[in-house]
């Protein structure tokens, strides 16, 4: 039975490849799919939402990371591979999802590959703890050494970067389907206005707080912290898989105590045990922040969006940091 399934899958993949090849060979001008709509693949949730909002009913958006899954380590299924090969445009962020990027690189020339980091000012991954990079740092292990100084991929957690990406998506889709360009621009303007409002709400909400220190599970909130004048200190490194050493955890606990931190934040979809250890150590509580790398099925069913989840994040931050 599994044998016949493998055979069917192999057949499906070869047919898909054949189809793509014939499409690429005989229709280099018309690069839309059979129903006439642009086929757009989005690497993970926030990009997905931008593509849906800008494209509206005029494009068919294929989401890749399943609801509730972790986006860093995502690997496409064979079915998604076929979808990707049939897509007109793929939107992704370079150096964030290594497994997916390998697949994107190998896609045929008929698929336009758009790295949405273009036009975004990248922030560098700093040392984990402000002021300790000279002394303790050399003992903190290879991961952090390698990570410090390279680009932080979590750009979407600053609404300003979402605006930049929205503009890029509108431009690319408009170029791919010139007759719909005006509609894409109009959609983008509507979404950008919502992002502006979100940006203003964040700036106002976080303007006056008792604490400006954000202790998080991993280094995902650097852009958000930079945008609104907060200082991020992360338990683990830039990727959630990394483990801190005992000394790192101790140094973070001391820093957090010295800065009167009352809440340790951890991310949805990740184990909270290290955050709890740290919270116990300094007598703080814990709270959940969403990295928005993916929304759960429940959230999607409830109609959650980038903007609504960011608003939840803001409410959590305001309550925990003592904002007025």
């Amino acid at each position, binding site marked *: 039975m599994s044998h016949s399934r493998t055979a069917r899958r192999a057949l499906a993949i070869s047919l898909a490849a054949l189809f793509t090849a014939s499409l690429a060979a005989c229709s280099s001008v018309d690069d839309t799919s059979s129903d006439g709509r642009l086929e757009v693949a989005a690497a993970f949730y926030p990009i997905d939402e931008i593509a849906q909002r800008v494209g509206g009913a005029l494009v068919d958006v294929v989401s890749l990371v399943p609801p509730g899954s972790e986006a860093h380590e995502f690997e496409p299924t064979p079915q998604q591979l076929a979808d990707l090969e049939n897509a007109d445009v793929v939107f992704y962020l370079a150096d964030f999802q290594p497994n997916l990027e390998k697949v994107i690189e190998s896609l045929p020339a008929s698929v336009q590959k758009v790295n949405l980091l273009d036009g975004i000012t990248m922030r560098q991954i700093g040392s984990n703890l402000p002021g300790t990079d000279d002394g303790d740092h050399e003992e903190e292990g290879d991961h952090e050494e390698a990570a410090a100084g390279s680009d932080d991929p979590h750009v979407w957690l600053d609404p300003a970067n979402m605006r930049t990406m929205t503009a890029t998506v509108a431009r690319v889709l408009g170029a791919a389907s010139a007759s719909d360009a005006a509609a894409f621009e109009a959609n983008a303007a509507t979404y950008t206005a919502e992002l502006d409002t979100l940006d203003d709400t964040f700036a106002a909400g976080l303007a006056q707080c008792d604490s400006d220190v954000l202790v998080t599970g991993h280094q995902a909130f650097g852009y958000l912290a930079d945008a609104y004048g907060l200082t991020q200190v992360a338990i683990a490194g830039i990727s959630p898989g990394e483990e801190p050493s*005992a000394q790192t955890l101790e140094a973070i606990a001391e820093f957090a105590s010295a800065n009167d931190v009352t809440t340790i934040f951890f991310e949805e979809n990740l184990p909270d045990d290290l955050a709890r250890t740290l919270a116990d*150590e300094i007598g703080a509580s814990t709270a959940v922040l969403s990295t928005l790398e993916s929304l759960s099925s429940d959230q999607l069913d409830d109609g959650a969006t980038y903007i609504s989840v960011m608003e939840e994040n803001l409410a959590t931050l305001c309550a925990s940091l003592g904002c007025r």
Partner: protein
Amino acid sequence: MQWLLDPFRAEFMQRAFIAAIIIGVVAPVVGTWVVLRRMANLGDAMSHGTLAGVGLAYAAGVNVLFGAMGAGLLIAALLLVFSSNRRLGQETVITVLGTAFFALGVVVISRLDTGVELTHFLFGRVLTVQWSDIWLNLALGGVAVLVVLLLFGELRLATFDHVQAEQVGVRVELVQAVLVLLLAVVVVISLRAVGTIMAVTMLVTPAATARLLAHNLRQMTVLGVVFGVSEGVVGLILAYHLSSAPGATIGLVAAGVFAVVFALTLPRRMPHHHRPLD
């Protein structure tokens, strides 16, 4: 001196040391019998097999220690059933069961949509030990040590003198079953701190080191505990300063002590006479 005390500053490190000390006591007490009865491969199978319970418990949102205990009980029961087949050797049945449960654990954990990783359980996360884990480990470990002390005579007969054991009514297979359960307990109390792989190290290596030096069972048990506790504490202090994986560092210290003791006792063992215990 400061170098020795630094690791004990933070409360989470104090919990880590307590966890290591509990393992250092319980594992060699049970491990003495594992070494003497040549059951080390059963410890290995048990440590891998409990992963199935860990994965299922995580999926169900239950404390993973209960899941590991459940899997341990099931493996012990199945072992009793399959061992009645005389055509297959005990070690074959043990391997089939251990790898099957391990495979189930890997499948379950790989299907979980969370950041939980296999390595967390294989090598432990000593920084995440909670007080509730310590209390549970103390209770389980205390019972395990008590059982070994109460059954000391039975264990001795079942291990060294089958004939007399049967004459005085000691059921060898029942003693074996109890030991299998105790093995599961050791794996469970090691899970969070040093992980399942290092549980086997703590079970076998300190007891094996003690076997090289001891003249009788009591000595072997006490020496095993001395080795187990000191290796656990020294390993954690080293891991703290080297920022190395704690479970593996403890394992290396234990292996190093074994190597040194083996080398020092080599001359005594050269004239090929085998020293029986007691």
